[in-house]
């Protein structure tokens, strides 16, 4: 299947008072048309920055140093703001982890959806409002003809997220970037939103990048997974392969940390609760890695195959995958 998106070797810095801070350090991923990819990482790993880089949304003090984002054969990082405007919301849509902040509190939700529709399509206001009702209906909002007149504060968090999804789908985009779509929602509501998203992505023939810190969500709603650590993708694989046997020690750590019961939990206490440090040389994970070799502190590993369609950024990936190390 053809690649819809290919992000290659992206380096991004944040210019702080004390000097530039590396946030993305050669991140890359690829997505086939129709695929759903889960991007997993902890806070500060760079997952949100990666998503915003794809859409060209980073502004100073953020700085894209190098890399390319090939979408439909064109490099988005080389495009002008004006050209990107025709892509954002139309070809590629973004949803927010904080739907309420993403919505304008002073506008009725119907008007906000209509604005999105009119931004890319020559459409009378009346038609746009009518389409807004249909979109609200398709995201499962009851009484959509009434709810178009509601303000965001009159809707629950789950309903606001549905409105955001309706806006994202307004132009049937080829790619949806969903940044933690269920953050802050209750479990039963989360499941409704995830089901909805999966069904609509299928129905609209879109592809999905789902950014999440929840390995449970990715296991059930994505086909592929990319694990991001210290601004680099450290592993990418098919979901079934990944959960059956991860090849990077950090991925293994995450999977153990997510284990659920009192019996499964033992031995998780590797101390990872500190800030990520970027070493000048060697593997970014080496200082915390339980199976690091002296060589790991010298030589930075590349993202390389370890099995069919399974990449890992670790010198010992083959041993880790076979379970020969206590990673």
């Amino acid at each position, binding site marked *: 299947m053809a690649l819809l998106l290919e992000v290659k070797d992206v380096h991004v810095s944040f210019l702080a008072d004390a000097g530039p801070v590396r946030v993305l350090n050669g991140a890359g991923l690829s997505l086939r048309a129709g695929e759903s990819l889960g991007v997993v990482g902890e806070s500060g790993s760079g997952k949100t920055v990666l998503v915003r880089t794809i859409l060209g949304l980073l502004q100073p003090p953020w700085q894209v140093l190098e890399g390319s984002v090939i979408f439909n054969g064109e490099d988005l990082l080389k495009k002008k703001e004006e050209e990107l405007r025709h892509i954002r919301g139309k070809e590629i849509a973004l949803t927010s982890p904080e739907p309420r902040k993403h919505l304008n509190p002073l506008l009725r939700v119907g008007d906000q959806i209509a604005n999105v529709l009119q931004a890319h399509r020559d459409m009378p206001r009346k038609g746009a409002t009518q389409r807004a009702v249909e979109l609200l209906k398709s995201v499962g909002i009851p009484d959509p003809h009434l709810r178009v007149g509601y303000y965001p504060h009159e809707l629950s968090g789950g309903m606001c997220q549905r409105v955001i999804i309706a806006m994202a789908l307004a132009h049937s985009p080829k790619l949806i970037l969903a940044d933690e779509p269920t953050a802050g929602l209750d479990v039963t509501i989360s499941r409704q939103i995830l089901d909805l998203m999966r069904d609509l992505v299928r129905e609209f023939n879109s592809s999905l990048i789902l950014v999440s810190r929840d390995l449970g969500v990715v*296991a059930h709603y994505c086909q592929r997974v990319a694990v991001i650590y210290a601004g680099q993708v450290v592993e990418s694989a098919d979901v079934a392969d990944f*959960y059956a046997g991860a090849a990077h020690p950090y991925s293994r750590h995450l999977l153990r940390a*997510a284990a659920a019961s009192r019996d499964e939990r033992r031995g998780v206490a590797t101390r990872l609760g500190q800030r990520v440090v970027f070493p000048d040389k060697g593997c970014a994970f080496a200082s915390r890695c339980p199976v690091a070799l002296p060589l790991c502190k010298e030589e930075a590993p590349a993202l390389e195959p370890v099995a069919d369609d399974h990449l890992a950024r670790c010198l010992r990936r083959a041993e880790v995958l076979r379970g020969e190390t206590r990673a």
Partner: protein
Amino acid sequence: MMGERLLDVRDLVKHFPAGHRRFVKAVSGVSFHIEKGEALALVGESGSGKTTVGRCILRLIEPTAGTIIFRGQDVSTMEQDRLRALRPHMQMLFQEPYDSLNPRMPIGRIVEEPIRLGKDMSPRKRLERVVEVLDMVRLGSWALDKYPHQFSAGEQQRIGIARAIATEPELVVLDEPTSALDVSVRAEILDLLTDLQEQLGLSYLFISHDLTAVRRVCHRVAIMYLGKIVETGSTAEMFEQPLHPYSRALLSSVLYPDPHEQLSRFVLAGEIPSPIDLPPGCHLYGRCPWAVDACNAAYPDLEEILPGRRVACFRAREENAADTTASGSGRRPPGSF
């Protein structure tokens, strides 16, 4: 140690005024107990009233009605000075690690504060105790003169834990202790909480919406929905087979990190209604697929329908008997570990 009741809450009610002589019925008649050395989870979604229950028990807010027996004494109506004498025995761990620590106090003073207020100890003994509890949470005396902002979120939460256990309490109320933390830090904190609970024989009231966290730490679970407990039981049995329709919906929504897990989904209609105008009958009426007319007439009592399993549902006995194969989250262990 187990068997003796440390905390006994009966018919706890808390209403908040909502204007126009209306009330938010945050907690409407909740009863449960915690034994010595037991970790009880109080689980529910936002608006279920779980945090309000925790705050009432510590009298951080005043209950509207009900009794709270702690160490044999009724704390629900106790005067403040007698309550103060009881404070060292009951402590709290808060949700936001950084916000719950005074940014202008060094760690040594933060952890010492509850000892100074609650215990008659010389400054030297107090310092010894502070160092001791900092060791217990895997920090150490090096942390004494540092300030909260110099620590990571996980370390800040461990400072919070050190403060909570400094006075050798019997009961610790933990209000969403890991919801502000990342996965690996969260695992670390949950392990520490479990270890401390076992070592010190603490009792926990673990308030959370995070069902996997609860499963790691707690012996028993009480599930709340709109101000009422709908089901209680041992953690293992509850996760194996929830009996109340709301418990089923809640537990079947949990996504485990195992792509082969069969998603058996028990779906409730719509969203949680407002706790201002609650119906006279079961609060789940209107969303529940099992509901019959009787459910809208009266609220069902918590009844023991299986040994150790108490459920507030008129239909639970019949529906669960008809559906013996059902399980909320029956799951295989993940493949590779």
